[in-house]
């Protein structure tokens, strides 16, 4: 049973849709706003900005996060920047161009109207953040500076050293703090959502577990907003924080929310290569480094073990510049990642295990001086030095792709509402704006667009008809959901087997990285689909979760998240198998052009794949596929070329 897959995109020409939608959206009058309780799960850029803005408007907001403070959400780790179509550089940028670059970067698998709206509100975000005191980089005249980023030929990225995500999140956190002081937002840190509660088919509450005490609680609201980020940690190793997980969105999926394009994951080209099995995460080096760094590997395999400074210019293969002369080192992420994999597969990779390529700054240092490079990327060079013990001012960095972002997420309409009435999904947790590949500096833009400037306008379309319909937490639906959550916790603690959580999660991650990573094929995906249920069965038979529920129990937290990853992984592989084309980050080896680029099949796959959970009593059956056809009224579908 699902609602319709109607996108609710307004009619009219593309640059009038959002205006006309706002003009005709419903409103909630200021005196009534305080009668609505809005539950926001997640306090990163999307959740934090939504909670602060809804609080500012007068709604009563309850905001939940698993971290000990909303200031620590993983948005904080974004380094490079945030895009906006300000055209401060006078280099030909416009809202249309930002829109077009984003659609094209996503390989024509996102919804036009949503992306256009994103580009439209991008400028407001910069205004808002500057006013909050975000210290964006400036030029000597005191005006804002920009840098260029992958997938664009204009310079439209605003940045705060290599800590743009941190500064934007702190701006948003401070706005949230202001509302907490004003009493409109109540914050619940160290509290994890474990289930969504539906009453009469509407999302009206959540069940949570307090991570400090283990207390399981019910919260009712007039609407629920999920801003719980992406699921990159399904791969075990990713650039995500340790705590990032799929639990909130997956459990909403199990309650009937459609999960869209789960196989669209982004492998970021510039991460520090893995050095051993003990490793708990991978660290990203901002893509902005590719502005001044040149990517290369030795032309000959025999040169790989040599020190890079001993390899002469003529023996180096600057493969991105060679293959993509017009974008060069700034080719989009999916293309750059695959190119790195390709040269390593040829045996020309460098560093331990041969899984690495050089990112070399020597030309830029010669041209601009070490000071300028240090000013632009100093903290990134420091991070690199800490982790590897190497000095990138004198020896080229070694980089390799790593899982970084997930474009897939819960399906939402133009109002950012899922197919479950009342359940809204924003930021990385939804699927809507990045298609099959996200461009650099667009995640921060989307998170803040959704929270500051979209949801506050679209949420009233739902709330206006919901006055007085908030159920009591005594309703039987809450009791039922709570008892299911308790049963699951008890079950996790009672397995008492012989395998550690990490060993199972690592095994899952390894399987996915090989079969559902940078390159995928039908045989590999079928292999993964046959192995995942066995691993899941192994988990529930043989995992060891120490401790009790009524305690600060980090093992139990992780166990619940890994259990969800073990189910979600299957959905991801199924989606990858079903999408029998290549597009963006989803590269099916069966579908490539003669020169190895992704080959789309617009005839059959210019559509969103939205999956409906099928299963009961703890079993997972094959989910049902719904398709939302993508209509391109403004742009022409073309073979994506960055040559």
């Amino acid at each position, binding site marked *: 049973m699902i609602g319709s897959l109607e996108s609710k995109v307004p009619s009219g020409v593309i640059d009038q849709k959002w205006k006309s939608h706002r003009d005709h959206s419903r409103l909630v009058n200021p005196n009534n706003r305080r009668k609505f309780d809005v539950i926001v799960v997640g306090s990163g850029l999307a959740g934090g900005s939504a909670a602060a803005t809804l609080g*500012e408007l007068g709604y009563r907001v309850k905001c939940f996060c698993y971290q000990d403070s909303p200031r620590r959400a993983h948005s*904080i780790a974004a380094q490079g920047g945030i895009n906006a179509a300000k055209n401060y550089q006078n280099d030909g940028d416009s809202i249309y161009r930002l829109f077009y670059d984003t659609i094209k970067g996503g390989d024509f698998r996102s919804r036009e109207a949503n992306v256009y709206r994103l580009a439209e509100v991008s400028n407001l975000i910069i*205004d808002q953040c*500057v006013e909050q005191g975000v210290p964006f980089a400036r030029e000597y005249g005191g005006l804002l500076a920009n840098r260029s980023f992958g997938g664009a030929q204009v310079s439209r990225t605003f940045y705060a050293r290599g800590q743009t995500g941190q500064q934007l999140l702190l701006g948003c956190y401070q706005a949230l703090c202001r509302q907490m002081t004003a009493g409109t937002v109540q914050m619940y840190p160290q509290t994890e959502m474990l289930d969504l509660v539906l009453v009469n088919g509407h999302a009206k509450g959540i069940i949570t577990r307090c991570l400090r005490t283990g207390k399981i609680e019910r919260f009712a609201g007039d609407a629920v907003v999920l801003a719980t980020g992406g699921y990159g940690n399904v791969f075990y190793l990713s650039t995500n924080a*340790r705590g990032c997980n799929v639990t909130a969105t997956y459990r909403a999926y199990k309650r009937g929310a459609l999960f869209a394009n789960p196989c669209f994951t982004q492998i970021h080209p510039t991460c520090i290569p893995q050095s051993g099995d003990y490793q708990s995460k991978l660290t990203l080096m901002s893509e902005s480094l590719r502005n001044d760094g040149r990517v290369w590997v030795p032309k000959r395999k025999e040169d790989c073990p040599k020190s890079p400074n001993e390899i002469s210019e003529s023996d180096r293969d600057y493969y991105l510049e060679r293959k993509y002369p017009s974008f060069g080192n700034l080719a989009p992420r999916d293309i750059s990642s695959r190119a790195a994999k390709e040269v390593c597969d040829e045996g020309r990779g460098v560093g331990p295990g041969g899984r690495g390529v050089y990112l070399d700054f020597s030309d830029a240092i010669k041209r601009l001086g070490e000071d300028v490079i240090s000013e632009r990327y100093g903290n990134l060079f420091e991070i690199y030095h800490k982790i590897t013990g190497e000095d990138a001012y004198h020896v080229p960095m070694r980089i390799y792709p790593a899982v970084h972002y997930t474009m897939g997420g819960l399906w939402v309409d133009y109002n950012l509402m899922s197919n479950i009435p009342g359940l809204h999904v924003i930021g990385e947790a939804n699927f809507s704006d990045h298609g099959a590949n996200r461009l650099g500096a667009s995640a921060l833009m989307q998170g803040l667009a959704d929270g500051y400037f979209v949801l506050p306008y679209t949420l009233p379309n739902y709330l206006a008809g919901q006055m007085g319909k908030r159920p009591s937490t005594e309703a039987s639906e809450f009791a039922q959901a709570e008892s299911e959550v308790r049963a699951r916790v008890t079950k996790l603690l009672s397995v008492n087997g012989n395998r550690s959580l990490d060993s199972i999660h690592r095994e899952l991650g390894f399987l996915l990285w090989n079969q559902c990573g940078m390159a995928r094929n039908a045989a590999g995906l079928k292999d993964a689909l046959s192995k995942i249920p066995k691993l899941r069965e192994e988990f529930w038979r043989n995992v060891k979760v120490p401790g009790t529920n009524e305690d600060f129990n980090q093992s139990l937290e992780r166990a619940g998240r890994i259990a969800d990853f073990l189910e979600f992984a299957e959905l991801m592989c199924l989606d990858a198998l079903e999408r029998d084309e290549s597009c963006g980050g989803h590269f099916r080896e069966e579908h490539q052009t003669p020169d190895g680029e992704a080959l789309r099949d617009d005839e059959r796959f210019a559509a969103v794949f939205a999956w409906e959970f099928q299963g009961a009593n703890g079993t997972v059956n094959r989910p049902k596929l719904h398709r939302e056809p993508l209509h391109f009224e403004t742009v022409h579908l073309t073979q994506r070329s960055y040559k």
Partner: protein
Amino acid sequence: MNFKLKIWRQQNRETRGKFVDYEATDISPAASILEMLDIVNERLALKGEEPIAFDSDCREGICGTCSLTINGEAHGPDHPGAACELYMRQFRDGEKITIQPFRARSFPIIKDLVVDRSGLDRIVQAGGFVSARAGSAPEANSIPVPKHDSDVAMEAAACIGCGACAAACPNASAMLFTAAKVSHLAFLPQGHPERTSRVLKMVNAMDAEGFGNCTNTYECEAVCPAEISASFIAKLNREYTRAVLLSRAGE
């Protein structure tokens, strides 16, 4: 590599804690100290013992979640950097490593190495923001900000909110934390309308949370993973004095 660990274990705030010895064997020098603890924990869990609770999240030095005092120093010996950026190659093989939580009156222990730092959030809630409603901001380039001011603001704004400053301070003072936020906003024109009330409210909140005062020991600056300069404390003192004078004069 092998290490002898001495780790603080404490069930909760009400019970007494104690040091417990552990062996960490066969650890890669390229592992971070948190990854070393992961390995110890994985082995403990399989033996049926309770793993050591410790906080971490981003594991790349920016979220400010990790909070370990290692061999007596907040975040350990490799400054500047958070504990998650401390790699085992910094230690000698066979070395004895003592790990405790961040110790400060205002950071009560939750369990083992995990402390409650919500006091820092409450200092920001008191006034560490600009009251800027979404939708009402002027065009971003309408107010030029001298690059120098913007750069200094950024240096202060880089604080990751970990609380190492208070943990390292003999007075358990959160002056560096508070100074960073006050300075960040005081250096920008957008922060000016609330400049006077902000500093008064934040300093009051800092005192109310039980954080101590600054006596210029500079331990905070020495351990700060974000390299926040103690000169911002001087800025805080100037801002505070200015605000007190202005408010006494009724301005």
